């Protein structure tokens, strides 16, 4: 998919990538609510989101191999930040069933590859970092409209902004992936 998109105008590419990830996310949430479909929808949704990054150079997605220790440390820190408000407020130790944990990992990786990977790169090429950060955060928030009550969308947007800012500041997608996986496993 990405190989085909690389030949199109940056604006059209960004529009197509944004529309695709929105459709996948909304479809995933709709299917997920059906009986017995939660885990298949999460796994297939994660795979469908990851497809949009297929064929893109790793560096363009922020998946460089340099300084892996720092990237992992950053991911752990982001995960801790994302978890902290919920963990402290409930004084709880959340537990996710093992089957759902695998699905959570799949969809977390897929979302990062799609939003902070392919979509960020497409918007960056179109209008630079400001558009990439704002645009990927806006689409990320819109993608969660069906799965979250309106009152939660501020926290969703803030999480998206943090992940996108890290992607810009460090040119790194490894830490957002790790942080997102940790957060999804717990919440």
């Amino acid at each position, binding site marked *: 998919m990405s190989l085909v998109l690389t030949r199109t105008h940056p604006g059209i590419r960004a529009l197509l990538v944004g529309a695709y990830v929105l459709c996948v996310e909304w479809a995933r949430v709709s299917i997920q609510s059906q009986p017995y479909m939660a885990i298949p929808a999460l796994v297939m949704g994660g795979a469908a989101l990851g497809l949009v990054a297929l064929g893109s150079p790793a560096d363009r997605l922020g998946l460089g191999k340099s300084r892996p220790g720092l990237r992992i440390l*950053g991911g752990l820190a982001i995960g801790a*930040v994302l978890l902290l408000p919920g963990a*402290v407020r*409930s004084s709880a*130790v959340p537990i996710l069933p093992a089957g759902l944990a695998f699905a959570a990992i799949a969809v977390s990786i897929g979302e990062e590859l799609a939003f902070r990977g392919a979509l960020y790169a497409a918007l960056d090429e179109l209008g630079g970092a400001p558009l*990439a*950060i704002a645009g990927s955060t806006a689409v990320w928030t819109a993608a969660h409209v069906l799965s*979250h009550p309106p009152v939660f969308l501020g926290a969703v947007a803030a999480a998206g*902004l943090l992940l996108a800012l890290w992607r810009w500041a460090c040119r790194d997608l490894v830490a957002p992936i790790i942080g997102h996986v940790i957060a999804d496993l717990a919440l």
Partner: protein
Amino acid sequence: MKRAVLLAAAVTTYMVAAWMVAPGFYDGFGPTQPYNWTCPPPQAGANTKPSLGHLDIKVIGGVSDANSAFTNDGQLVIGFLPGAFDATGKTTISVDITPLSTCPQPPGIRFVTNVYQITASAPLAKSANLVLRFSNLEPAPTDVYYASDPGGPWKSIGAQQQAQPFTIVTSTKSFGYFAAGYPSTSPPPGAVTVGGGGQTLPIIVAVLIALVVLAGIPLAILRRRQSHGEVEEEGDV
């Protein structure tokens, strides 16, 4: 430095936004609401007592209607097919669901839900579908257990494939007492645990902000060095 400041600002913004809505950022597949406990575990925090449920089922032409009884908090749902009851001589059948006010823990079994008593004004003629919701604060149950008396004996009536996250489904041909759990002689079913609460929130928040910023600075510096020779700061916010 600008990048570090923006990252710190983003962390702070997230903390404030997430603090206003528990549990903060989540991706939409955890429990949609906290479990209402009869005997809350220590980590449960604020707790609301579990709800009762009541249903009157019509009997038309000697056949009971299809319907579902559920507690008002949705933690237990029992569904009945048409003709599920032996409705001889009845025009309506009442079903009541009552959470037990105590929390029995029979030997060899670890309950992870409340114990519910289900009664009806007629016996079952067909199996009824039973769905119990459970909390993410306890390991996922492997079985639904049944007893005709809360003192036991309790026996497993199995569990079907999970229809929705954090629910367990089975069927029953009898009314009585029901709870979900797992054999306590075996280790808790596979689960992933993360995180935990704390009392030193401001210190933790400050450390985390510092950690994110410190972790980001070396990568940001590397990025800046790589940018030299290209268009300086092009596209930066």
